[in-house]
Structure formats: C-alpha cells, structure tokens
C-alpha cells in the first residue's frame, strides 16, 4: 500500500527539515536562495516541493510531500494536496503572527482538511512558549475542526514520526501503525 501525506505551513516552520529528519531516502529538495523577507530568517527556501519516503512496519510506504511556505506558491499547495491521505500543518510558534498563519492555512486547505485529516505540529515552542497548544486547539474548534495539536521539534525523527502516527490514527482509529520508524531504527 502507498499512502501520501502532505506537510504544509508557513515559511520557516520546519517542513523541509521534518521530511529530511524522517525520510528513509535522501529527500528531493527544491531550495533556492531567498531574496524576499525569508532571507532574514534563513538563507534558502523551498520553491516547488520536498519529497521523502517512509516505510511502515509491514511494508506500506508513506510518501511525504512538503509544500513551499510563501502564498505566492499556493498553486503548488493545490497540486501537491491531490490524492493525499491527510495534511500535517507545521506552525512556527516564534512567529509574531503564528495564530493568524494557522488560520490562513486552515482557510487555504479548507476543502482538503474537510475531505481528509489534519494534524497540527507546533515548532519552536522552546523559543516562544505562547501561544499554547490549548490556544491552537481552541482556534481549531472555532473553525469547526477536530485535530490533534502536538509540540514538535522538526529536527527530531521521533517527533515527526509522532505527527505521522497521529495522522494515521486520525484517519483510521483501528489502524495498527506499529512504530512508523521500525524500518529506520534498524
């Protein structure tokens, strides 16, 4: 079985990092030197997509696609969302407008979220403790969305695995996902 999961969220949330952390193969990355405001944050930015693969216990493959973060690349959001099982939104908690950014992505992916499943990963909480996970859950509730919200470090394979596991369980509560990293841990 092949599954497809989408990683999205604003610039600097850790999408490329998360896919690199968990992928069993060297990921496909499409980074270009940043010239917009992104350059104040990091030297490079994704302009088309990231792609990685993770093998589940039992041989199922999860294909991981990451989107660019800037709204000018929103056509890639649509393209990459096609056929996905669900979406993992990463939000950088240290951004001043983190909550607004969440809402922007909830709106942009509204149709996908209602048709499939959503998990929200909050990154860089070590740099900024607020908003809290409860704040995010409340915002999701206001939008009529039920989705797990987890604090994660995008550099940590364990944390990213947890996000994927949460998404798979949201999709199918009876699923025996095993340890998603069984393959990489060997």
């Amino acid at each position, binding site marked *: 079985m092949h599954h497809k999961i989408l990683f999205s969220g604003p610039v600097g949330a850790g999408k490329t990092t998360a896919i690199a952390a968990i992928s069993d193969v060297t990921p496909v990355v499409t980074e270009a030197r940043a*010239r917009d405001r992104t350059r104040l944050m990091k030297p490079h930015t994704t302009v088309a*997509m990231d792609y990685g693969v993770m093998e589940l216990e039992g041989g199922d493959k999860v294909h991981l696609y990451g989107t660019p973060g800037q709204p000018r690349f929103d056509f890639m959001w649509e393209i990459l969302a096609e056929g996905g099982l669900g979406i993992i939104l990463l939000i950088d908690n240290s951004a001043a407008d983190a909550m607004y950014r969440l809402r922007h992505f909830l709106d942009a992916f509204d149709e996908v979220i209602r048709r499939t499943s959503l998990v929200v990963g909050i990154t860089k909480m070590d740099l900024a403790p607020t908003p809290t996970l409860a704040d995010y859950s409340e915002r999701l509730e206001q939008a009529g969305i039920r989705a797990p919200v987890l604090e994660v470090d995008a550099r940590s394979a364990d944390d990213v695995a947890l996000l994927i596991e949460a998404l798979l369980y949201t999709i199918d509560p009876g699923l025996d996902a095993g340890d998603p990293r069984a393959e990489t841990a060997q």
Partner: protein
Amino acid sequence: MRAEQLNAILRKLSATSGEVEAAAIISTDGLVMASYVPEGIDDDRLGAMSAAMLSLGERAALELGRGELEQVLVKGKKGFIILVHAGPDAVLTVLTSQTARLGLIFLDVKRTAAEVARLI
C-alpha cells in the same frame, strides 16, 4: 537602474521576434525582477511558477541522469513556455505563440540569458 537595463533587454528580445509574447526575469525564489507581459498574465504567478518549474526541472535532470539543466520547455496548444537559468540566481521565462520557430527562439533566449547573467 538595473531594472531599467533588464527591461531594455526584454524589450529587445521581444522586438527580435514577433513570436515572443511575454518574457520575464525572475529570482530563483520566484520574485519578478523585470517583466514584459501582456494583460491577463499575473506577474507574481508567472514568477512563482517559473521558479518552481525551473527548480523541479533542475532536480529531475540531475537525478534522472540527464546532467545539468539547460532548459525547461512546456508545449501547450496555444504556444510554448521556455525557462532557462540567467546566471545562478535568476530565471529567464519566455512565452511564445504556437507558430514560434523554436530553433531561432532558443538562440535568442540563450543570448538574452547570457546578457542578463552578466548584469546581475
């Protein structure tokens, strides 16, 4: 100043061939530096799409053993889209009519890209 020079280069490209309907110079992260586009085409969309396509083309060419990318060519029923690097940090995107004589256009595009690369 530089934007003016870039615009002049694009005007020259479109003047040498009536088949060139639009052209733009874009940073590899998708921001338009100069453009010559007819109404109905959004500059920002053109910029972002150019950066995405060039970047994917580059990766595909390398990973599938085709070597360093020289050009991305898209053929639609109404014409062509040609994308090339203009130096390491910029993209030259050219839209042509469907009757375009590609050989000649490729030459013009290559020359133009070299000119742009010298400038930026």
